[in-house]
């Protein structure tokens, strides 16, 4: 990567009492990236974001922004600005004064402050509410104020802490597109913290999945979905069928293993593996059929339908396998009359191409 704008090197954060919130994290974030820190709540992603902003100090490691080590730089001197989860829009100031605040306290001339404030309000479509007080505004509007207030400072990096979590579903979709649009317009690096995989997958250009303070995988959304590096990532991003398997033999790039309920299977993998692996396969990669599929090389197993859930465009069929785990199969409802065409209790074949499944070693 050429000249990362933010470089996080071996950063750890231990809180008094021994809690390790962030554990030896290394991330390089490029100029203009829309980067997401994704993980379950309490995984340390917000602490990491706060360390980038300077509101929290790393116990170990270096944070480099724009080529400069930020160790001794307080938050008010860093080229970053934050949109807080609670928005933290000052209740005693009008919208306009909120947005102008960051310029006024750093001594930007008043006429320039006026102009930039007006531009920023224009950008988030709030010009008509400039004289309002925050308590007369909706959550979505307050968030736009927080966005404008941060962007007006022209930071090198904009930090967003769970920006959509407090909005209702409809507003969330609008804001998601709005954020993507804004990021393309202003050309600033965005780092967003979220626990919502849909949010991260749909907005971010790259995602770091974090669990228990440690980075599990850094990849693009499609890589994360199709090539998860660990069990945790596979399970956290989208729905996945995980089949525990015992390794029987290894030769070159292929392994042979015994998966519960499925018998002996062979896979290509270049990963070094121990005695136990997990076979991961997404529900939409599985096919169901009433008769035994004849295509060569398919992995196939006979089971019975335990549950069918109808979702309009798709149906989720859960199939019980004798001596193995339940498999979820997502079926496209591509005819108006048929639905998934299966009923509870029905005997059915589940099959998939070996290439559509992935061997996970950790």
């Amino acid at each position, binding site marked *: 990567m050429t000249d990362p704008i933010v470089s996080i090197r071996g950063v750890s954060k231990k809180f008094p009492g021994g809690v390790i919130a962030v554990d030896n994290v290394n991330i390089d974030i490029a100029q203009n990236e829309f980067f997401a820190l994704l993980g379950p709540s309490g995984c340390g992603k917000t602490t990491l974001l706060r360390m980038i902003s300077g*509101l929290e100090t790393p116990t170990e490691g270096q944070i480099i922004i724009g080529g400069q080590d930020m160790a001794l730089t307080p*938050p*008010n001197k860093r080229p970053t600005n*934050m949109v807080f989860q609670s928005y933290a829009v*000052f*209740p*005693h100031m009008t919208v306009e004064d909120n947005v102008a605040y960051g310029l006024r306290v*750093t001594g930007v001339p008043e006429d320039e402050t006026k102009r930039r404030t007006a531009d920023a309000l224009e950008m988030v479509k709030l010009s008509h509410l400039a004289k309002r007080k925050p308590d007369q505004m909706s959550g979505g509007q307050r968030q736009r104020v927080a966005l404008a*207030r941060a962007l007006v400072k022209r930071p090198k990096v904009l930090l967003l802490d769970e920006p959509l979590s407090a909005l209702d579903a409809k507003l969330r979709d609008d804001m998601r597109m709005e954020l993507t649009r804004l990021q393309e317009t202003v050309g600033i690096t965005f780092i967003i913290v979220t626990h919502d995989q849909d949010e991260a997958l749909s907005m971010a250009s790259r995602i770091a999945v974090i669990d228990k303070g440690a980075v599990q995988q850094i990849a693009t959304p499609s890589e994360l979905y199709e090539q998860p590096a660990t069990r945790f990532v596979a399970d956290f991003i989208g729905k996945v069928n995980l089949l525990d398997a015992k390794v029987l033999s290894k030769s070159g790039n292929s392994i042979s293993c015994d998966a519960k309920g499925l018998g002996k299977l062979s896979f290509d993998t270049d990963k070094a593996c121990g005695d136990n692996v997990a076979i991961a396969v997404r529900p939409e990669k599985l096919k169901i059929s009433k008769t035994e599929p004849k295509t060569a090389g398919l992995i196939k197993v006979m089971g019975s339908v335990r549950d069918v859930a109808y979702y309009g465009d798709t149906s989720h069929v859960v199939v019980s396998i004798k001596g193995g785990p339940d498999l979820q199969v997502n079926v496209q409802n591509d005819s108006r009359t048929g639905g998934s065409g299966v009923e509870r209790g029905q005997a059915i074949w589940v099959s998939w191409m070996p290439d559509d499944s992935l061997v996970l070693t950790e």
Partner: protein
Amino acid sequence: MDNWKDNKSVFWTLAGPGTFWMLVFFILPLGFLFVMSFSDKAVINGEISITEYDYLTGISNYVRSVDPLYLTIIWKSIWVSALATILCLVTAYPIAFGICFASERWKPLLLLLVVLPFWINLLIRTYALIAVFRSQGYVNLALGAVGLGPYDMLYNNFAVIFGLVYVYMPFMVLPLYATIERLDKSFLEASLDLGASQFTTFLKVTVPLTMPGIITGVILVFIPCLGSFLTPDLLGGANAVMIGNVIERQFKAANDWPFGAALSFMLMYATFAALMLRAFFAKRSAGVDV
């Protein structure tokens, strides 16, 4: 369950004792004093009676209370109280702030230290201050040891103001603590993040957002200061008389209840004015209310 307001017997069982108490021991005596303030001592057989009054004779007591002699004392009481209040605020704010940012383990202990003086009688605490400040007190002994003093620290305005600050400090710390504690700390973080220094953040964000607590504290300290008589009596002596001492003397030494009542009501009007000011600011402020 019914709303307790709709159920008459429940309502009066709950509201009765309090209402009775306030009516009999607060409103009625106050009304009596109000009537008294418009009365005069009765003149019987050409002599002023000690026990009898002519009720509702006019506003002569109020006319007397605006005599420059009393106005001077009222004015002095106001500025002594104001100064004591400001000193309380300036000292209490860092204390309250410190408690709010102390660890959860220390917080209850620190709060206990703030209210600890309430466990000791005011009179004893005031005499203890005399022991500290008198000419052979601890302060002068300490200063004498390094070749300074002795200084007269007792029986002047300094002693009174120090005493008032000492006695009323908790009334300032507690409302400030309550407001700062409820203040969303992300406002302060946002201000820092936007480039403001700690000092600017304090002036432009912390103070405005904790204004309701500041005003409550100021009212809670200023009003009792204005009416205090024990502290100026013991620490100020004859040199630092406040209006509370004058009123006390009318009721006791001078046995002039009508004039004492009039002065009391003058003081009460000043208090009402202060409360109206508080209501005015509370309406305008959008901060955290106590």
